[in-house]
């Protein structure tokens, strides 16, 4: 005859539960495994205090049903998270491809505008060029700043884009004329102003939408 009070506190039953915990995803197990094992011990102690073998059977039944019910749910949750990471990667790759496409179009427009002396096309080329270059560099810096610091994302975007736009404009103003005889400072400045308004406007709208969404969730 076994002593019922030994069934859920014995090292064997704890080892068995530790083995059952392996049914959960590793990350979940690392975070909550020790607490679940503690709960198992606490509940086992309570079941034993009833001094009834049925109490203990019920306890194990609850533990088994709980495992069967929740372990697949946690795995599904993990899969969903991984798929959301893949979606983010896909979106980032698309954004990068978009930037490259804009740079190519900008260079084609600049060449065409210069060859045919069409100032409106040249201006569009300068704006697209600025949007693509500052977008690739600026968004990368903002992404790093937001991920690694606790800076306000909109403020980080404002200062990053100001610097990312100001540096090439100043550099081009100083050396542009000596590199390219056809260099037009006015058009370049206009292009960078359009680009700044475009990128900062996008971040501002994004922050506004996000703020509204959070306020909606919190206020409802």
């Amino acid at each position: 005859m076994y002593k019922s009070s030994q069934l859920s506190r014995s090292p064997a039953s704890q080892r068995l539960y530790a083995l059952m915990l392996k049914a959960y995803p590793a990350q979940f197990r690392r975070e909550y495994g020790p607490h679940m094992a503690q709960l198992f011990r606490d509940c086992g102690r309570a079941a034993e205090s009833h001094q009834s073998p049925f109490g203990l059977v019920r306890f194990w039944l609850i533990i088994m049903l709980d495992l069967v019910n929740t372990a697949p749910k946690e795995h599904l949750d993990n899969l969903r998270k991984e798929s959301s990471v893949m979606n983010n990667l896909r979106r980032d790759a698309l954004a990068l491809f978009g930037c490259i496409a804009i740079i190519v179009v900008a260079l084609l427009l600049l060449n065409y505008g210069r060859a045919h002396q069409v100032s409106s096309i040249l201006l569009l080329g300068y704006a697209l060029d600025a949007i693509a270059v500052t977008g690739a560099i600026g968004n990368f810096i903002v992404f790093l700043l937001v991920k690694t610091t606790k800076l306000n994302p909109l403020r980080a975007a404002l200062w990053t884009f100001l610097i990312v736009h100001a540096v090439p404009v100043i550099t081009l103003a100083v050396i542009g004329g000596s590199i390219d005889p056809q260099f037009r400072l006015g058009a370049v400045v206009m292009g960078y102003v359009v680009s700044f308004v475009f990128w900062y406007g996008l971040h501002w709208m994004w922050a506004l939408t996000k703020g509204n969404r959070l306020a909606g969730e919190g206020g409802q």
Partner: protein
Amino acid sequence: MDFLPLTPAMFHILLALADRERHGYHIMQEVEERTEGSVRLGPGTLYGSIKRMLSDGLVEESGERPDPEMDDERRRYYRLTDFGYRVATAEAERLARLVKSARSKKLLSRV
């Protein structure tokens, strides 16, 4: 609100934390006592729900230990956030409206 309806386990956990912070076993005991033994949360259900509620901002870990001398340091205490409190209230109101509808259809007697 995107969170509603809450799962029964999540609502029971929010109810258990409505009056004070508790650790996992306390939550489980409170739910069992309040429902007179009809609801028993297993370890996976309890911590799976807590994981989701932490990531949704409904509950948070509490650094304080209500009774440090009587307690194991490894236990984690949880408490409701303001947002969690609002979600629990909204769910309670939603359920109250359902009960009212059931009463109007004479599915429930007026007690």
